[in-house]
């Protein structure tokens, strides 16, 4: 697997506080990589190291196979969580300035800005001052400035904060679009539903250490416990319930006598669903039999809690 970014045992210390402890990550090309973790876990420090804002005390960072160097700055686009614009400056001028700082020529920057302003339907903002804009409007401009220089790697830290649902969707579509075009994306957020929706890979950082990483689908597989949600229909649900609870360990039971419906959650031994299904089928109509796969949110909370409990 070809990786856009690899960190090897990156360690960073601020005074007595260890911000990152031997964090090794492999971020595959052309994917969306979720960087998760509670507040203060060390995500921002890691992102700043990738952006060469600060430098690791120990460990190396490789960008596209090369040791990370200042020349790579122009190949990375970073939308920080704490972001803002010069309040008194005009939108267009400001976007041009930030684009030029990323290494674009003025002409090229203007051409691309025009395209993006049209595309996100904000063409008439060019001569407005930033202080006249709403927070969401300013976020759009920051998004454009981040991606304008067509970087190979994009780092978004809470990209949807400050957006209304409609604009959040527009931005989400643009992010997916960028991925389609071959950009690799690191995505740092607390919003787990967007992690589910967007990320193929995740890494979980907690108390300065990486405690989990890999493909999201693999992680989910690893975290499932063969728990199934079952829905049965039978003439005498009460009798059926007694019979089942004698034989199996079930929970979250719901009985609807009028509709003859029985719902419950059951944990079954691995690769043994056939026998149980047959048992149910003999006694009732099965109208639901679904494996419960833990959400990213549950994995997040469970892992962090497990980690804390172990200490």
């Amino acid at each position, binding site marked *: 697997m070809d990786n856009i970014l690899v960190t090897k045992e990156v360690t960073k210390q601020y*005074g007595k506080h260890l911000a990152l402890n031997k964090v090794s990550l492999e971020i595959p090309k052309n994917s969306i990589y979720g960087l998760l973790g509670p507040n203060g876990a060390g995500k921002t420090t890691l992102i700043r190291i990738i952006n060469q*804002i*600060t430098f690791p005390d120990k460990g190396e960072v490789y960008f596209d196979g090369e040791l990370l160097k200042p020349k790579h*700055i122009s190949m*990375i686009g970073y939308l*920080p969580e704490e972001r*803002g614009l*010069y309040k008194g400056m005009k939108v267009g001028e400001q976007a041009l300035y930030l684009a030029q*700082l990323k*290494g674009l020529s003025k002409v090229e920057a203007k051409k691309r800005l025009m395209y993006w302003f049209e595309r996100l339907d904000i063409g008439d903002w060019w001569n407005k001052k930033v202080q006249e804009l709403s927070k969401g409007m300013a976020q759009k401009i920051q998004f454009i400035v981040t991606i304008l220089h067509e970087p190979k790697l994009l780092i978004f830290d809470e990209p949807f904060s400050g957006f209304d649902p409609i604009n959040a969707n527009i931005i989400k579509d643009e992010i997916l679009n960028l991925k389609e075009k071959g950009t690799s994306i690191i995505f740092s957020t607390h919003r787990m539903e967007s992690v589910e929706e967007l990320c193929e890979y995740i890494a979980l950082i907690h108390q300065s250490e990486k405690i989990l990483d890999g493909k999201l689908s693999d992680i989910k597989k690893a975290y499932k416990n063969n728990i199934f949600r079952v829905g049965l229909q039978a003439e005498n649900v009460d009798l059926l319930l007694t019979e089942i609870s004698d034989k199996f360990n079930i929970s979250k039971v719901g009985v609807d006598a009028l509709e003859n419906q029985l719902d419950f959650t059951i944990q079954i031994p691995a690769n043994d669903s056939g026998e149980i299904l047959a048992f149910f089928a003999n006694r009732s109509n099965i109208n639901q039999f679904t494996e419960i796969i833990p959400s990213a949110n549950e994995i997040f909370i469970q892992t962090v809690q497990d980690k804390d409990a172990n200490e």
Partner: protein
Amino acid sequence: MNKLPIIIKREYLAKVRNKSFVIMTFLSPILMVAMVVLIAYLTKINDNQKRIIGVFNESDYFSNDFNTTESTSYVLFKDVSLQAAKDSTAHMGYYGLLHIPYEDELEKVAAHSYFYTKETPSSSVLEQLEHVFQARLRERRLQDMGVSSSEFAQMDKKYEINTETFEGEQNLKGVNEIKAIIGGGFGYLIMMFIIIYGGFVMRSVIEEKTSRIIEVIISSVKPFQLMMGKIIGTSLAGITQFAIWIVSATLLLFVAFAIFDIDPTTLNNGAEVTGGMAGNMMPSVPTPNQTIQAYAQELFKIPWAMLICFFVVYFILGYLIYSSIYAAIGAAVDNETDTQQFIFPIILPLMLAIYVGFFSVFSNPHGPIAVGFSLFPLTSPIVMLMRLPGGIGEGGVPIWELVVSILLLIVTFLGIVWFAAKIYRVGILMYGKKPTYKELFKWIKY
């Protein structure tokens, strides 16, 4: 591609386009000129007010001593009673009445003379009158000792010691002061510039922090580049402002003087009131024109080109040192109210430089204090400039002092910029709390 020019350009334009900058730039010269014109105008009015003093002289003396001068005229009363003289003096609104009674001896005349006024008389008027009496009394005593009037006139000559350097150049009294004032002017300019534009740099850093744009920018440029871009851009804006001020103030001043018909030399005379009066009382003093010419020559002898060159050198180094400290302070705090505790220690050496400069350089440009402060890097830009109008080398600032001063300044500049850049780099990404000095020190190691 080098990003520094892009940053400098933005910082410059942001400053120059700022409304308050535009207003300050164009309003200040008008205010300044208005002030100068007002002072000149008031001085003129003040000078125009003539005092009239009535003199009721019954004695045989002083008949030719009370001559009308620029500021005082004398009206002589004759053959009236003292009461009538007093009444008419009050009635005519004169400043006062000098009564010199008839006595047989000058001493007694003097002892019994009175000056009547409505209110307590001004000291300058009294001095003027007393001077007349003193001169006459001294002449009389000398005559008693056998010195004739003509001999007395010859004897009473003003004397000034002649001074000369070892090279034979004539020294003028007070030239040191004038030179120091010129140097002090440059030094003062540097101090004002540092305080005003250092403050701008600091506020600009704080603005970037509070608006949170800093993290966006810092992912594309090095903090050091941003800091230097900011300092240079802001100082260019400052230089623009100063240039506009100097040009427009000069123009306005000429226009204003033309309109109000004020002779610019009025201002100079005003500053030397006592000197002018002494000149009036003592016709034997060399003509003021000659003195002025001598001073003018001395001013031309001041090595202006050298002075301006060193002004630029000290200005740039001094400004860079101080404004990078200002930038570091801006980076360390979250809002302007937190800056006070850090600003005071920077202003201190500047104030010290100005005061030490004015006191010790004026009295002795090459004394140990003056030398020490012109070597110490935080004060040298101001103090050295006060010493420099005296020239370099023999009779002026020794070359080694100049070299050491500039070298120290450069070393300090490198050290402080390094130090400030460290604090800046860490500080701009720290939000929420005001750091202590101890924490600032720790940041250097990050």
